[in-house]
């Protein structure tokens, strides 16, 4: 069993949803980035999604764009990203996924990238701007180095395509909650709930949902659905941005927030068990 399978099984037994945290590796700098990730792990995140900074992150909103810029300014690169992940592996065994842009992977050499990722302790790779059609060389590398390749599914993805993605994807499927780029949004859309139903009917893989989710009430609402995990990025990243001058406050704010979010993930009602949690 790989780390994802183990994690999702363990959570199922505990009747919890996965709380997935996203940050950009090296934001705001190498050392602080490790500290931030340590804080997130300590306060109970179940899975880590980590970005390798790219100069032109077109699927990201302003908050995460700035995180990419901050990391690049401190000369973060793919090589150092793998080194940083090795350091993270020293203190945690939870699944680690990479969220990257294709040009960074290609420039490093697709095979080389997957080999080094595996060696560093990565479990999955999601390439934001890689379409299903362009994925064969990448899938091949992922298989060779036993890494899970994650794909996005959006509200506009037709069922036929969801089925194709289901065949190539492993670990979990990443659902895009909104139409648009990353960033916080006020409400959950009705379409988001429909999307979960639609994908669930076409896959046995766990489903994690991200983009636009930042509030406890959004998380709680999602725990009532068939979703297996909730990914939160921009909100955490905004706490880094807000507290660049005071690391202590940064860590306090982040740990307070991630702790609160983890609590939300424990509220879920499992219909198949006898002792339903009272709500």
């Amino acid at each position: 069993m790989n780390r994802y399978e183990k994690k999702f099984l363990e959570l199922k037994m505990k009747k919890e949803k996965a709380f997935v945290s996203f940050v950009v590796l090296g934001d705001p700098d190498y050392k602080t980035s490790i500290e931030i990730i340590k804080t997130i792990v300590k306060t109970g995140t179940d899975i880590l999604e980590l970005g390798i900074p790219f100069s032109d992150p077109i699927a990201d909103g302003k908050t995460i764009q700035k995180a990419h810029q901050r990391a690049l300014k401190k000369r973060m690169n793919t090589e150092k990203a793998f080194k940083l992940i090795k350091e993270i592996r020293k203190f945690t065994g939870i699944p680690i996924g990479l969220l990257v842009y294709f040009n960074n992977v290609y420039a490093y050499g697709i095979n080389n990238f997957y080999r080094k990722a595996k060696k560093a302790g990565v479990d999955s790779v999601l390439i934001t701007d890689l379409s299903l059609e362009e994925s064969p060389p990448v899938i091949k590398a992922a298989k060779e180095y036993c890494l899970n390749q994650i794909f996005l599914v959006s509200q506009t993805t037709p069922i036929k395509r969801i089925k194709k993605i289901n065949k190539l994807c492993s670990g979990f499927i990443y659902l895009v909650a909104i139409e648009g780029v990353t960033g916080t949004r006020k409400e959950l859309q009705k379409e988001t709930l429909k999307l979960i139903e639609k994908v669930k009917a076409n896959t046995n893989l766990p489903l994690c949902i991200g983009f636009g989710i930042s509030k406890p009430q959004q998380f709680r609402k999602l725990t009532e659905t068939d979703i297996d995990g909730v990914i939160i990025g921009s909100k955490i990243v905004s706490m880094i941005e807000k507290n660049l001058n005071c690391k202590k406050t940064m860590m306090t704010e982040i740990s307070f927030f991630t702790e609160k979010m983890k609590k939300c993930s424990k509220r879920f009602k499992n219909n198949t068990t006898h002792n339903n949690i009272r709500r």
Partner: protein
Amino acid sequence: MSGKGKFGEFGGTFVSEILEASRAELEEGFFRLKKNKKFKKELAELLEKYGGRPTPLTYAENLSKKFGCKIYLKREDLLHSGAHKLNNCLGQALIAKYLGKKKLIAETGAGQHGVATAVVGAKLGLDVDVYMGKTDAERQKPNVFRMELCGAKVKIVESGSMTLKDAINEALRDWTATSKNTHYLLGSVLGPHPYPLMVAHFQSVIGKEAKKQIIKEEGRFPKAVIACVGGGSNAIGIFRQFLPEKNVELIGVEAAGLGISTGKHASRFSDKKLGRKGAMHGCFTYILQDKFGQIINTHSVAAGLDYCAVGPEHSMLRDLGRIKYAYATDKEALKAFQILSKEEGIIPALESAHAIAYALKYAKKCSPKDIILINLSGRGDKDLEMVMKEIRCKK
């Protein structure tokens, strides 16, 4: 590499799943409509009666005498709105209309594509938002005002290098959120499939006319066809028709900015160290980047050439050796700008001035009977303020 929309190993669909449905809708729409009789008739009429096609082929007599060969100019500068960009804008805006879209978004560097989108939006009754880097908006002020006059909203982009690349980033982000009702009117032979094919299709009217016109004037093909290459739409537009004529040399001219060795340029092909294969803005092509794949900020005096990547069809034709790629520096372009103005009374866009600059170099190797055909992609009104500054600085 696998997948659709390929030019050899280049091109493809490097877009996130969020955009895939809109991309597929556009692909279906383009291949259906380009054969549709009503669509074709409407576009042809717009090109003629609104755009002013066909544009003339001008024999540059004084320049020819001075440089000792026959120099012809394909006058896209005379197309409505001042550059070749209108050919593509009319085509795509009409597709958008047929697909039921209410709004156009576009990026612009020099502002020519933004202006062309704005005028087409006004003409066809579609809302227009144009993304423009702050640096570009400052150096192409008249075009910002032109767009606004035609009712477009100009959205200033302050991220990254604040030029064309960043304007495309923002336009793509906008499209990701709004694609249901919005068409992204990409201005060059870039982006995911079908854009490179579609833009080349609409721009190929340039070469179709030019080929007939040069045969009518001279009864033979030119020795060389020369065009400037930013993303490369005006170049593909004129080159495509000449591709089968193996004796016609095709030369694309990139912007060498302050010089290739300075690293401050936009020459994807001429800089062997920084210009490498990769994926940017939806397609696989040659890109100026560092060894980790971070995109490098480019430099050119011509905002329309100041871009990190080049159209995938160019990448293929370059690797096949069918098109040769040369370059001209800021300085050479500024000089050519003045030469053409003085000799022929034609003020070229700084982008097109790069093609002129290289053509004048090339002319030195020619005999008096040799014909050079230059695609004069746009007019220089938008550049006057900047060129004035540059010339006065020197004095």
